[in-house]
């Protein structure tokens, strides 16, 4: 047994350590640090960091053929299964009540997607291909599953950086949004109070809403059908109250399990040769541009609504028109309360936020349609 090759066989791991893999391990450690020490979306950044670390170990069997991470990737990322399963859980957790109470908030959700399309143009100008540019733009939706879904179909090779950007910025919502909101509004505007009108939404309306939205959106934007269909399925289960066990499983057990699988599989795509490129940096920068422009568009549009409505709309709620449900709405409430502790915009912000959630899914579908994916 012992021959001249023994030592090299035993040490072949060490021999295959490359500079790239070392850098990627550092990236993995940064992700783990952000998740664990900083609390930035730990549910995703920890599995992504772990997946990244495991995939970049020399000769990692986990990403070899039939390796666990490869299996997870093939099982749920390449065919879009995981983000869709997550969407059922999101639907089961989303309360569309505030939106139904104040349907005009839909407009804010639509305005909050403007940055996606602007960023798409910017990315094209920087030399990305059309499918790549569309995938980068969708980061602006600040909605992880939608970003994974769209980029998985259009530009699977960019999945790693796009996902990391989407989830990192999602966790940075409380840091990135407030300066934008304050810059664009006057203290007087931030003090505008919006009375809470407790319109009673009947159970029938709540149950019909997900069905109607699915049929409507699915017909208008067929590419959005999988996302909106699963989102609304989750919501239908929640609002019907008929299948509490399934609702609970979707919102908790399934969502948790899939989150782990999804994070690991995404992390495993972050291999040095694919990730350590200038394009990754460009994606991170463009992603934050998309996010910021979305927020700006939302706030400006809310200002316009305020002008038209004679001073009855607090422009801050426009910032909730991006997705990132329900974090964006909470940030809006916090900023409003900094200005006036008796001002409670939360319900309106939640409405705009739920609209943003639906709108970003629709925007994803529109992008897919524009790119002719299928």
């Amino acid at each position, binding site marked *: 047994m012992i021959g001249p090759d023994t030592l090299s066989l035993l040490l072949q791991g060490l021999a295959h350590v490359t500079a790239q893999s070392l850098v990627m391990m550092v990236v993995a450690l940064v992700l783990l640090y952000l998740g664990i020490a900083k609390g930035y979306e730990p549910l995703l950044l920890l599995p992504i960091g772990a997946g990244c670390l495991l995939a970049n170990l020399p000769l990692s069997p986990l990403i070899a053929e039939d390796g666990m991470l490869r299996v997870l990737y093939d099982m749920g990322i390449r065919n879009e299964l995981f983000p869709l399963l997550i969407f059922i859980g999101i639907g089961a957790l989303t309360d569309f009540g505030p939106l139904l109470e104040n349907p005009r908030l839909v407009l804010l959700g639509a305005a909050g997607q403007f940055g996606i399309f602007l960023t798409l143009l910017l990315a094209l100008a920087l030399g990305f291909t059309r499918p790549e540019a569309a995938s980068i733009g969708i980061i602006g939706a600040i909605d992880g599953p939608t970003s994974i879904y769209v980029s998985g179909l259009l530009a699977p090779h960019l999945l790693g950086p796009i996902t990391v950007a989407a989830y990192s910025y999602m966790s940075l919502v409380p840091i990135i949004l407030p300066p934008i909101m304050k810059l664009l509004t006057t203290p007087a505007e931030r003090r505008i109070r919006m009375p*809470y009108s407790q*319109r009673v939404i009947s159970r029938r309306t709540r149950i019909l809403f997900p069905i109607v939205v699915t049929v409507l959106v699915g017909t208008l934007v067929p590419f959005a059908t999988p996302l909106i269909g699963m989102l609304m399925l989750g919501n239908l289960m929640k609002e019907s109250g008929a299948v509490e066990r399934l609702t609970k499983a979707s919102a908790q057990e399934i969502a948790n399990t899939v989150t782990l699988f999804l994070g690991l599989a995404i992390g495993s795509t972050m291999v040095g040769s694919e990730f350590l490129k200038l394009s990754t940096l460009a994606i991170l920068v463009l992603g934050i541009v998309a996010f910021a422009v979305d927020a700006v568009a939302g706030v400006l549009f809310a200002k316009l609504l305020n002008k038209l409505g004679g001073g009855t709309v607090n422009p801050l709620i426009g910032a909730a028109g991006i997705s990132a449900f*329900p974090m964006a709405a909470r940030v809006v409430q916090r900023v409003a309360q900094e200005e006036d502790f008796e001002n409670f915009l939360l319900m309106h912000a939640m409405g705009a936020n739920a609209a943003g959630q639906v709108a970003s899914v629709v925007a994803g579908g529109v992008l897919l349609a524009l790119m002719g994916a299928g």
Partner: protein
Amino acid sequence: MRRYTLGLGGREFVIDVQEIDADRFEVVVGGERYEVKLAGDEDLPESTITPGLVPPPGSDGPARPAATAAATRSVPARSSATAAASSRPAAGAGPSALNAPMPGVILELYVKAGDKVERGQQIAVLDAMKMHNLIGAPRAGTIAEVCVEAGQAVGHGDAIVRFAEG
């Protein structure tokens, strides 16, 4: 439904208020039926007319002089059973009370009856849409009564604390 009897310049009015929605009311004044839409609602704790009109805490008689706009708005007009079960809304929950700005669950209360508070001082934490909202005192004064307990669900406009007069 809630019935108010007001004395105004020597004349007496009987006003019945029935809540249809949170912002729509059916109001009957002297046999005339009106549909009333509530355009806005705001607590005006420092308004000059309100303190004199506020009944002493606990007085829940039908002849309460609840003629201020703010008092009218805080008439949830729910069935008395649910009202009693939750938080005694409208029982003087006029401008001299701190009302829940939105539905939710009271998580914490930082004051008790007899406490003196400053305007803006933290009174309670209201969990609404899974967000912890700090509820501050709308005015300086003494807490006459704490109307809710930690863990209790409140509806929009339900009184959280009531202030003593003066």
